[in-house]
């Protein structure tokens, strides 16, 4: 048997109808694995935030969820503008989302700090003009 299972998701730019489907399907798998509700919650909240970041700021991208025996690794990569100042982006309430997106109730900042709060490990790789990759680890 394999030591892990990978699921790959396409994340479409500004597609608010199917946004969140990747985290929903990860949630379903975690429930089938019998992972504790508290862990599921942390995984889903962080993945959802990261997915929405890619939808709103990142011009879409790809999501990967790799399930291991004792943890899950979530990678969200986008081809967006990149983050100029990661430290600033990590501050609560800081946002670069355009007004129309904020009116929809998204993009009020909190994305990255919220992911950090809910995950066991968060790695951010970003290059201005190229894109951003988040690697989120959550232990079962």
């Amino acid at each position, binding site marked *: *048997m*394999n*030591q892990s299972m990978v699921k790959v998701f396409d994340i479409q730019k500004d597609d608010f109808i199917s946004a969140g489907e990747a985290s929903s399907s990860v*949630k379903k798998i975690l429930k*089938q694995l*019998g992972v504790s*509700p508290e862990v*599921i919650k942390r995984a*889903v909240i962080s993945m959802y935030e990261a997915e929405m970041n890619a939808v709103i700021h990142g011009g879409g991208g790809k999501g990967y969820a790799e399930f291991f*025996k004792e943890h899950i690794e979530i990678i969200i990569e986008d081809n967006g503008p990149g983050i100029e100042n990661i430290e600033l982006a990590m501050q609560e309430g800081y946002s670069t989302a355009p007004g129309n997106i904020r009116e929809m109730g998204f993009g009020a900042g909190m994305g990255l700090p919220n992911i950090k709060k809910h995950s066991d490990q968060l790695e951010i790789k970003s290059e201005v003009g190229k894109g951003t990759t988040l690697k989120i680890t959550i232990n079962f």
Partner: protein
Amino acid sequence: MEEFINSVTLDKDKCKGCTNCIKTCPTEAIRVRNGKAYIIKERCIDCGECIRVCPHHAKKAVADKLEMIGNYQKAIALPAPSFYGQFPSEYSRKKLLIALKNIGFDGVFEVAAGAELVSAETEKRLQTENFKKPMISSACPAVVRLIQMRFPGLIDNILKLESPMQISAVMARKLFSEKFGISENELGIFFISPCAAKVTAVKSPIGIKKSAVNGVIPISEIYGLVHESLKNTEDDNQTNIFSSDIGVGWAGSGGESNALSSGKTLAVDGIQNIIKVFEQIENDKIENVVFIEALSCPEGCLGGPLAVENRYVAKSRLKQHMEEAKSEKAQIKPVLSKAITWSEPIFPSSVLKLDDDVMIALGKIEQIEKIEKDLPGLDCGACGAPNCKALAEDIVRGIAKETDCVFKLRERVRQLASEMIELESELPHTMNRTEKNEN
């Protein structure tokens, strides 16, 4: 696992084995086997969706019969607030209560009274930080079981108070055993119910050890009798009103949340709508809401599978009762000073789990995906499972096989047929006589 009791059951004679119910079940609890629907008990939450959708009325709720009241020295009827919406609004609430009593009960006690105690306690809990927000009402038993099964992460959000039915039963038992001078267990308490899940909530309760209700009688069972009884009902001085418009309002969607002073409430009805809202709560995407009222039936209990009147007609009538109730005061002091907290813990259900071992479960998920990819993806239901993914899961769980799929079966038949044609041309040499003779 503890013994599971379901109210929703199948009338085999009426079932045609069609796929209407398997497709609407929110927990994928129904399969068709041997031409008849089959309910997987561990998965059924008694929401009643299948009762509503079955064109042959083959799904029914097992409940108690009116005759059961004869087993007790005195019997008390506990009408759900939705009871008032079932009859023409020319009859006042008090008249309805008297008419109900007159079909054979010794007293009536409004569940609306218990509802008001729950509302008061909810209000208090919303003011403190001790309870997780958004708080989710536990009034609908189907919703509580939906959370156990599909949203275990929301168990902490459940408002862990005994239901209006239970609280009213406790109050009625005390009040009437004193009034009649009999012991509490000589008194039979009967909930007059629009709801199938309440039957299960009485026979196999969550959050409490034992229900104070002795039997659950469907509104539909006593509807005709009450209608008849209303014709010769006179006002009396013995029957009391126990609640105001707040308790009465609990019958419909929005009633429980409107009873609260906070505007930060959300009322959702219909099980599929509830699932969507719960998904959002799980994603932490519902902000600024402190209380969620979720009722499994469309329009709330007024739309219950055991109610009789059209839910919108009933809603209009209820509105009139609520108008009248605004000027009325409860004529009896509440027997209890406050609502009662659950005494028993609530656990998540594990029916969705594929295996106790994470790695084996992962392997099963991969197998399910592989099988699903190979299925036609039409979600036709002819295999007896609600969709192709569910069939794939059933195959891996060992309760179905690939050839249950008619398309897969046809593929196999075709394969077999072509193999037979191939074999047909390969006769043994000793049999190929005609050719030899020609030579």
